């Protein structure tokens, strides 16, 4: 939908899509209205390890600076990034022109203080928690400053692209707060026609005339549908309850138009396609806790290479031809994959507690209080907890059950 909306205004500018996934025969990239850049084309050091750091959504955020650099590497002098859930409604030549003067162009969430009212402060605090600038639109030009910016952003999101507000992190986005301080000439595009979205709709007056969308009386350039689910059309965004279908006003037409376009482009079918990087190579789902543990384990897990590799046969019911290896669990570290390492008995235990469940134990003070002697008298109680409550609370697949299988 985004590609077609862009082409309607700029038919001669190539439109690329980074696939943070695999086509896996579900669609033919050659038939799409855009050029597909496969994940493997990105110059990401240890890309298979990086890919394991994040679940589906954060991974798609974290690859942004790598995609931008890839396009500069392909020889484009100016590159504009649009986030996926957007509709181009007008001409973007102004951004392209700004990129002749500036190495970086960013768009803020707000361009003026929110209207007076009891929620003015909570709305601003939301922005302070998630980042001053919105990555819905971001431009870079082929200049040394932009290259330095992208390399810096890549380094930061490589392992720090999480939702962790108390740590100063909000995915890839909060890092951009530092850009005006770090990079000379970074331009802030304070134009209400761009990045119209739930966080600024109360301040922007929307009119629709025969397909044209006006913002404060001027043509809208980019409309964003952050948190919008076409299957729940009465909620403009899942991120806020302030905005409802009832108080949406004329912007309803835009949401309805977007919903219809998504339906026409196969939303109902594509939403069911699996995410290739969401599972180990034996088909077992990768829990978020396992991703976090991998990130925190640093060099200790480097030697396993691609952490999705299991070296184990596919569990019954999951068809993964080609995956087979002996399962080893007796004795100290014998694992040659991360998956095996997780499922091995942790050093110090009597063999009934895996490294994964011990990591859960270390992450939770409530468990440490309930089962203080986890390698001794409290061991059986803890293992019992993992089998019942633990597995349910953490949503671990059955393959991670405790005690480890021999």
């Amino acid at each position, binding site marked *: 939908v985004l590609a077609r909306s862009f082409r309607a205004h700029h038919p001669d500018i190539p439109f690329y899509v980074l696939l943070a996934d695999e086509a896996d025969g579900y669609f033919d990239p050659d038939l799409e209205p855009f050029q597909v850049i496969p994940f493997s084309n990105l110059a990401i050091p240890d890309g298979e390890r990086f890919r394991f750091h994040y679940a589906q959504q954060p991974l798609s955020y974290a690859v942004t600076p790598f995609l931008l650099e890839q396009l500069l590497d392909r020889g484009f002098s100016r590159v504009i990034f649009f986030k996926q859930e957007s509709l181009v409604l007008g001409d973007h030549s102004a951004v392209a022109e700004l990129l002749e003067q500036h190495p970086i162009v960013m768009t803020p969430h707000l361009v003026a203080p929110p209207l007076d009212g009891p929620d003015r*402060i909570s709305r601003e605090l939301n922005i302070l928690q998630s980042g*001053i600038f919105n990555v819905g639109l971001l431009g870079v030009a082929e200049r040394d400053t932009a290259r330095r910016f992208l390399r810096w952003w890549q380094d930061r999101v490589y392992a720090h692209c999480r939702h962790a507000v*108390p740590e*100063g992190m909000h995915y890839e986005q909060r890092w951009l707060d530092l850009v005006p*301080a770090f990079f000379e000439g970074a331009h802030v595009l304070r134009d209400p026609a761009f990045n119209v979205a739930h966080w600024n709709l109360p301040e922007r007056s929307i009119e629709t005339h025969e397909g044209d969308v006006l913002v404060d009386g001027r043509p809208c350039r980019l409309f964003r549908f952050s948190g919008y689910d076409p299957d729940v059309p009465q909620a403009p965004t899942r991120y806020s309850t302030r905005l409802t279908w009832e108080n949406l006003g004329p912007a309803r037409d835009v949401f309805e138009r977007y919903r219809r376009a998504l339906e026409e482009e196969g939303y109902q079918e594509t939403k069911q396609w699996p995410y290739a990087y969401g599972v180990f190579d034996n088909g077992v789902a990768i829990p978020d806790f396992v991703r976090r543990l991998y990130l925190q384990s640093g060099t200790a897990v480097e030697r396993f290479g691609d952490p999705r590799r299991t070296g184990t046969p596919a569990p019954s019911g999951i068809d993964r031809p080609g995956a087979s290896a002996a399962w080893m669990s007796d004795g100290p570290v014998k694992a040659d994959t991360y998956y095996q390492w997780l499922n091995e008995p942790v050093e110090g235990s009597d063999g009934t507690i895996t490294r994964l469940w011990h990591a859960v134990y270390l992450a939770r003070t409530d468990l440490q209080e309930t089962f203080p002697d986890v390698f001794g008298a409290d061991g059986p109680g803890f293992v019992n907890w993992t089998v019942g409550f633990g597995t349910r609370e953490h949503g671990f697949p059955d393959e991670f059950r405790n005690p480890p299988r021999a």
Partner: protein
Amino acid sequence: MTPFEASGPRVAVATIVTRNYLSFARVLALSLRAHHPHVRFLVVVAADPDTDWQLEGEPFEIVALDNLGIPHLRRVCFRCSRQELAVLVKPFLMRHLLDRGVSGAIFLDPDVLVVGDLTPLFVEVTHHAMVLTPHLLQPLEGEGRIARELNILRSGTFNAGFVGVSDVPASRYALAWWQDRLLADCTAAVERGVYYDQRWLDLMPILFDDVSVMRDAGCNIAYWNLPERHLQVSSGGIILVNGAPARFFHFSGFEPEHPKVPSKFSPWRWDGAFGQAAAIYNQYAEMLMAAGHDSTSRTKYGFDYFDNGAPISSQARDLYKALGATAADFGDPFQTNRPDSFYRWLSDNHPEAIEPSPSGTSPNTSAAKR
């Protein structure tokens, strides 16, 4: 003499202290005077004028706290901690300076030391609605790079130890907005997106017109950027940073009692890593001591006591805050002798929140006169 002094655009510099920080204001005043003898320097002493002693013979002009137009001042002074009050006063002080007719107003934290020519700052301030200085000026390198940048993301891109405004509608609009936000929230609550007055500054460049980000390595030299600011002191005593003139240091978290510790907010210690910075910090400690730090640092904070001398516990402050708008019904919350006072309400409903008065204090004797 620059045009900012005798004639032409007039710039005033100001700071806010509680009385235990008076020595810092004195040192700042003298350092500013050494480089800009004709620039006015004003100080708000965030203290209770009824109970705290009068100041005379200081090297600066005093601006009374109750002259700044802070709404419900007594209630605000009760509600805020010492540090919260000091930051909340800032936009009120800056508007007050504009109302006095200056064309540029600069706020400096009291723990700032002017070490060079500020003329480029005066120029920037009079040419823009607002001027801010970032904590860091370039991506960090080395082992601790990410942890140090995250620390800045938690506390704010810009350092609120320097804020400059000129008298234009955009800056008055921005100051009114900042006042409103600080009255609502000026605590340290990183998880909510608040860090005193400072994180609000992150929004200034996007919400208001003509906010300038001054990326000058000579400004706001402090523990958070020392590794990137290479310092040299010439034989004539001129301080250079990365080869250009240093303008002002910001000794955030520095305690002259512990001159070997650059900042209580940082684990760094002088170990030869920061060039001649240790000598500069040492010299600053000596200036503070010469300005009476030993005695001023011991003075009490008047807003920490009810008017009967009983200390205000943090629990009492929290209970008062939690009452929200209804707290207005108690009138002046420091007063204890009225039957409808907050103190009486506290004694009746939360006696555990009342700390005993220090011995020898009789009711209605102000704490600060002791």
